[in-house]
């Protein structure tokens, strides 16, 4: 069982993702913008973060950079989600230390699979 932070401005997607991950036995918390995501990451110390890139208050890439700069979260795996297929976004996300990249519209099975892979390869804190 791991603690997963979902940062996603679309409430419905956040809820569906959380439900899916809880159904496979993970603990989840949700933030709806970049700023909230950074605060939640500091407070909850998640084992993994799922981060939307396009958000109204503070985009995902900036938020990820902040989270990485927090000592306790430096090594946390981050999965980026975006509706944009702009290759530039992808490059920026990789530069910000993306562990994986999932394009919208995604299928939850894909997300769950990616989460499991990342959690197994990362030593649990």
């Amino acid at each position, binding site marked *: 069982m791991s603690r997963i932070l979902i940062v996603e401005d*679309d409430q*419905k*997607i956040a809820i*569906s*993702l959380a*439900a*899916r991950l*809880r*159904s496979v036995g993970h603990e989840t918390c949700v933030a709806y913008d970049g700023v909230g995501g950074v605060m939640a990451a500091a407070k909850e110390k998640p084992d993994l973060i799922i981060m939307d890139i396009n958000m109204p208050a503070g985009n995902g890439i900036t938020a990820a950079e902040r989270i990485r700069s927090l000592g306790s979260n430096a090594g946390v795996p981050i999965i980026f989600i975006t*509706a*944009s*297929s702009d*290759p530039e976004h992808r490059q920026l996300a990789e530069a910000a230390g993306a562990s*994986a990249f999932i394009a*919208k*519209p*995604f*299928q*939850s*099975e894909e997300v769950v699979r990616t989460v499991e*892979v990342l959690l197994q390869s990362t030593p649990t804190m």
Partner: protein
Amino acid sequence: MPHVVNLAVSLSRNLRPIIGLLLILGATHLFARAYNAAEKQSHESEVELAQDRVLGYISRDLATLTEVVRSIRAFYDGSEFVSREEFALFTQPLLDANPHIGGLEWVPVVPHSERRKYEREARRDGLLDFTFTEKLEDGRLVEATERELYMPVFYAHPYESNQKAVGYDLASCPIRRHAIEEAASTGKATLSAPISLVQDSNPTLAALLFIPIYHAADREQETPRGFALGLIRLSDIFAAGITQAELPCELQATDLGVDEEALLFRSGAASVDVPPLVKPTRRIVIDLAGRSWEFTFGASRDTISHGRLLFIWILGALLSVLVYEYLRVREEAVIRNHALQSAHDALCERSREITRFYHMASHELKTPLTSAREFTALLLDEVPGEVNDEQRQFLRYIRESCDLLTRYINDMLDVTRLDTGKLSLRPKLCDPAILLEDMIAVMRKSCAARDLELVSAIPQTSAMVYADPQRLKQVVSNLLGNAIKFTPDGGRITLRVEPPHPRGNHVTISVEDTGVGISARCREKVFKRLYQVHAPDDDNAGCCSEGLGLGLSICKEIVLLHGGDISVESELGRGSTFKFTIPVAAGARRPIPSMEEVT
């Protein structure tokens, strides 16, 4: 006010043509002026030459007159007495040779005491009513009054034209006497001022040339025994000179006497009473035999060739109109091109806006679609709780619709990417055989539902190609999807991957079905964007059509981007085969292990 604006607009549009028109007209004017000036100059020099020729002819005529009269003096010098017959015999050949000479005469100096003797002698020569005569003021010739010395015309040749002058006492006329006295005092050939001949019924101007003849014994004696006289009718020599020289202008000749000027000749004037030449262009004075003759030339005629000038102007006007038209048409073309360009730019901008809109819209559609599909999936997986069989079936329908929507959105995005040139491949070295093997399992599910047989004719390995695996899968998935859609239940679909031929350099991938087939007419269009096979006007009547009509066009563009080619073979009612090629990666004809797999 709008009129003024319109005028200004049309003026500004026509500015260049008008300038062109004016320039050509200006150039024509300058050319015509230059041509005129050149013509005038050449004409003037021609005229001057003709004038010089006239002067030459007249001087020559006077010079020969002088020579002829001198020869008479020489004749007299050699003989104390010359008979009337001898005079005629001597002068005849001289007159024959010089037709411009009007007459040659012998004028003796006769003292009153010898008057009767001379008159008798003349009558003896056959001139029965000969007498010394003089002219009255009314012009009649009468017997000369008594005076100390007479200078009568005694011999005159030719006699016929000078008959009336014979006997006329030249001393009775002041002008003639003046010339005679001048000749006597200088001893030289002396020309008289112009006189009216007594022998001519019409008053004709003539000039007389006198040379004094002395007695042979005493050459130094003061009084000559007589005078040799030559006369020329001025109008004759002037007219002949003008004709010969082809003088193209008026000529007036004036005798410049000491006291008064006398008109010698005026061209084109029958009467002597003519006004002086207006605007004389040249004035030349010639001194001959003691007199000065002034020649005045008038303005020449026909200085301008109006025909040629007119021709130049017509040519210039035509040329300027042509240039005007040319420039105007060109200007209009420029304006039209400009308008077309702006319309084109506007359309391009509009097209870009629409593309941007589609791109944005497609993205925005994705998020709600994702959550719709996710919640459906959660319900199907019974995460919130159990669902009954009917609920499960409905949820599946929702999920299928979501999947279809997802595909359409992705197609639309691909099209906008292709339009903006943003569809970038992420190529890797990969083996299509291995890549596509996975797809069979996924597709088999949807085939099973329709009782379709999906045959996989894929070898273990084919060849390494440099391709975007996702895009390659997209093409095959699209072709398989179409095959499933258009093949009736119970049909067969074959996915085939063929390694390159021994000498070939591409892998061929084909999807064959036993479906409805595509007519020849439709085959040409299937790869066109937005083309859908429609009923009933198509040969493919009865075929359902769904989707956006983008799939095959995207497939084609993706294959072309990879440097391959795509084609279709089909027979109505028998099935279709879609086939595309992907070039083998350079230096990788043989299968080599995949070098990377990024996660």
